[in-house]
């Protein structure tokens, strides 16, 4: 069974149609890369999956559970259990959006701590739970190569380090699907490398990921499946070999040749 099914997703802002009938499925452990020029709807698609935008119509299903049937949903349906639905997804932002007043470790622990407090057995197990949460956060940050940076505040970290903290923060809640919105666009080439290395590592551990990126060579070798979006539509999709090696659509060829020239 597919871990993620998206059917006929539509979203417009005012009179501009940003997502036009988007449908795709993903298997567990797969890596999907969304490519396309700015304004093609990649980011909006990720924001819809993370319930930061409310689609006009379409269905989002995770593990067979329908999280959203936008055409049937009223505003209150959309907002019901919104937090639980969101937890199926994680999102890593282009601009990190770390919480500046918390250390790297605290950034990673915060959400898990707040969720743990809502459990009925929180009071009895408080100390043990806090220890677990801290150990979990520490191991995630160690995996990200930030063992000696855990107690630094975001302003004391480089952009690449910040983004790796943000990845650890998103992983802390064990999302079914981890989404990346141009994770390296705010970084210089040197720092881009260290973040891409971390994402590659996650792919080798079979983390289910959707990655919006402008790094074509990275998309090509990390993704199992590529979707090329153009003006809100899926223009072309397939394996990296198919899309990059032998694009069928004129628009895809044109888009890719712009990258080849760089």
């Amino acid at each position, binding site marked *: 069974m597919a871990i993620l099914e998206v059917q006929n997703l539509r979203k417009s802002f005012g009179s501009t149609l940003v997502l036009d009938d988007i449908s795709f499925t993903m298997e567990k452990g797969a890596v999907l890369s969304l490519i396309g020029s700015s304004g093609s709807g990649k980011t909006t698609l990720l924001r819809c999956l*993370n319930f930061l935008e409310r689609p006009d119509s379409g269905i989002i299903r995770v593990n067979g559970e329908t999280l959203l049937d936008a055409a049937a949903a009223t505003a209150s349906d959309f907002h019901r259990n919104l937090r639980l639905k969101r937890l199926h997804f994680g999102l890593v932002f282009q601009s990190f959006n770390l919480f500046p007043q918390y250390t790297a470790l605290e950034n990673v622990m915060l959400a898990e701590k707040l969720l743990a407090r809502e459990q009925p057995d929180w009071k009895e197990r408080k100390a043990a739970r806090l220890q677990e949460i801290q150990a979990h956060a520490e191991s995630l940050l160690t995996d990200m190569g930030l063992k000696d940076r855990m107690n630094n505040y975001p302003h004391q970290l480089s952009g690449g380090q910040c983004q790796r903290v943000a990845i650890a923060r*998103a992983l802390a809640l064990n999302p079914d699907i981890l989404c990346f919105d141009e994770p390296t666009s705010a970084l210089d080439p040197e720092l881009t490398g260290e973040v891409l290395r971390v994402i590659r590592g996650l792919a080798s551990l079979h983390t289910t990921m959707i990655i919006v990126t402008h790094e074509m060579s990275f998309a090509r070798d990390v993704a199992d499946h590529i979707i090329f979006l153009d003006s809100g539509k899926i223009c072309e999709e397939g394996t990296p070999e198919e899309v990059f090696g032998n694009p069928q659509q004129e628009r895809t060829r044109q888009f890719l040749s712009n990258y080849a020239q760089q």
Partner: protein
Amino acid sequence: MSFGEQLPIVFSALNTGFLQTMRLFLITLVGALPLGMLLAIGEMSRFRLLRTIIKTVVWIIRGSPLMIQLLIIFYFPGLVFNTPLWGSGESGRLAAASVAFIINYACYFCEIFRGGIQSIPVGQEEAGLVLGMKPTQIFFRVKLLQVIKAILPPISNEIITLVKDTSLARIIALQEIIWAGQAFMKGSRGISGVIWPLFFTGVYYLAFTGILTLLFGRLEKKLSFFR
């Protein structure tokens, strides 16, 4: 009366006046900070009518002199409805001055709070949301400290201005420190035609704003651990 004999009399009077200044200052803060927060929340609400009403009130209050507001609030009820709302004597004057100051300062605080809250990048809220946090958790755990850091300089500015603005209450004869100093010109406690006590009130203001400046400086330093 020699200068040496004047001194204790003058200081005792100025201290009493300064106590009244302090009262007005503290009452205003305690009232205007929460009221300003409420106004700011209202100004950001979804209800257009509420936003418009608050914006209009803020415009009127910020757009007219505090001295006129003081005079209207103190005299208007008695003159027009023939019911002196404020009671007689010093306590009535303090009540009227407090109401005028609270309304006036709440409007300034409202704009500072609103600006501070809106200055926090929307990404902070979104990061909290995708991590499954509730809106209240996002406000208190993520945004609040950033807002406090952002508004500390303008708030300390307003508070220092408030120290000196309390002197406007002299216009409705509130017996604050300016009133106390001025009394020795016309004659009070056996001293008359003396102007130095009025000038000397400035030292009280300087000392107090000096303490506040140090305090806010320390607070700002405390919040400098993040950016």
